[in-house]
């Protein structure tokens, strides 16, 4: 799909605040409301916008700890990846599961209320997964999402 700088500007606006109407986005990107609406629809139809995400203050909701886990499967070849993936995805505290190549097989993002709560999740739910082997944990201190390569602002 060929996108121009205006499409990139719209994507930047949507990734900051997706609840803006086509009118507001048009004003920010120098388009009329109907023109902005058509472009937004085209971006969504093409799947460039994968979906919407509600952004919550997880500290305020009592989730004080985020930990990234690198998980190695113990017995490669014998464990079904599908079984592992299904079981790990069903754990509510596991927010993301990525299959990776390198030092680890899977990368998990896990939230917990505090460190004792994390330890409970790790021992009772992660370590008991079918095929889970070596696990490395890194506690998240800060996180920043960048706009990505969406070109320079045309305005």
């Amino acid at each position, binding site marked *: 799909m060929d996108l121009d700088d205006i499409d990139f500007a719209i994507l930047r606006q949507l990734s900051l605040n997706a609840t803006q109407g086509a009118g507001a986005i048009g004003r920010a990107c120098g388009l009329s409301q109907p023109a902005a609406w058509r472009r937004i629809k085209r971006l969504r139809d093409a799947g460039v916008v994968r979906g919407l995400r*509600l952004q919550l203050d997880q500290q305020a909701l009592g989730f004080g700890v985020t930990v990234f886990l690198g998980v190695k499967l113990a017995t490669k070849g014998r464990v079904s990846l599908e079984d592992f993936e299904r079981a790990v995805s069903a754990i509510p505290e596991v927010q993301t599961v990525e*299959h990776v190549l390198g030092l680890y097989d899977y990368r998990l993002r896990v939230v917990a209320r505090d460190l004792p709560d994390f330890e409970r999740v790790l021992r009772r739910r992660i370590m008991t997964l079918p095929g889970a082997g070596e696990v490395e944990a890194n506690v998240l201190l800060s996180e920043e999402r960048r706009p990505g390569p969406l070109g320079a602002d045309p305005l």
Partner: protein
Amino acid sequence: MFDDTDRRILRQWQAAPDLSPAELAERARVSIGQLARRQARLREAGVVRGVRAVVDWAALGYVVEVSLRVTLDKTQGSAFDQFIDAARAVPEVIEIQTFLGRVDVRLSVIARDMAHYQHLYRSKILTLPHIADIEALMHVARIKSDEALPL
């Protein structure tokens, strides 16, 4: 501060952020008026920061995603700040995270193909300041990515 109704609303809202108010009110078993009041209150309290669109980089032609786990040379006090400032200037870096553990900083880097990645890695990543060690995890598949909180 939050009651079960708030949690119910947040649970349904985060599961489907593009529902209309009427649909969300029905799923959360509240009236539309109640929903609007509680949503406004959750926003004012800063619990709900907003709704953002998630860009599918693969659909834009960035099919390679690599997770770079970086250990910094911490003998210099400003190593973290200088490294992160420089990483922010690389457009292909879409995520910067700092950690307590074996890894200091992790960067998510996207590229159009392996040749593009190799070019980025050599010209924009390895030139970042204060790197002591760097490890790469190549992204194969995203199995779960909703990032929902277990409310």
